[in-house]
């Protein structure tokens, strides 16, 4: 699983790429937290899931973990471009009430 980032003004964009499960999430957790720490002055983080081909509930746990970390910095969290499978479990687990799904710029 790959993770990349891009800072645009007040927004930190985090791009995830690959299959999100118990194995892959363990490998990107530290890098995600490092990116958040380095961009703690931003207002929000947008996780772009366009490259995520598969996600199970371990992915939900990962996202909620990052949400909690961002909240400690006073940063909001948003999700964009989940595929149909990821969208289904994100919707089912009520994650969008914490981190809204957005389209385009906010």
């Amino acid at each position, binding site marked *: 699983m790959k993770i990349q980032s891009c800072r645009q003004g007040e927004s930190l964009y985090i791009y995830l790429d690959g*299959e999100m*499960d*118990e*194995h892959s999430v*363990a490998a990107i*957790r530290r890098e995600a937290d490092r990116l958040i720490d380095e961009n703690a002055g931003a207002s929000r983080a947008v996780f772009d899931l366009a490259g995520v081909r*598969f*996600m*199970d*509930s*371990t992915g*939900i*746990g*990962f996202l*909620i*973990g990052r949400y909690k970390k961002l909240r400690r910095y006073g940063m909001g969290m948003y999700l964009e471009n989940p595929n*149909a*499978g990821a969208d*289904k*479990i994100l919707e*089912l*687990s009520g994650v969008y009430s914490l981190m809204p799904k957005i389209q385009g710029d906010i």
Partner: protein
Amino acid sequence: MNKMQLKFLSRSENEIFARNAVAAFALSLNPTLSELSDVKTAVSEAVTNCIVHGYADREGWITIDCTVKGDCLHIQISDNGRGIADVEQATQPFFTTLEGEERSGMGFTIMQTFMTEFSVQSVAGAGTTVSMSKHIGAKAEADAR
């Protein structure tokens, strides 16, 4: 009727292999992408449970038995791990025994939602078996009516 069996060690790198192997076996039923995604997710949840909860700090065998019968895919996923003390509590949405570990507690709920039938048998100290099945093509048939 067609059958297959997989047996592999409870290592997290085997998750991708397990869910894709089951999905490949299900292809004979001509599933939609959405049905295939449901099956892969449910298998991934069950296998994750075996690794994270069943065997926790040790390695053990996970067995997957699949049967295709008519338009139905049956999947049984078993471990010989520590078992679940209270199955009813474990299957509640958001319940997790690993609060500090970023666990969503949604695994069993996802299996229940994505599959047509779902059940758990567990014996504390002896292991857990998750049985689930899914009718493939059910939605397409309903749409055609």
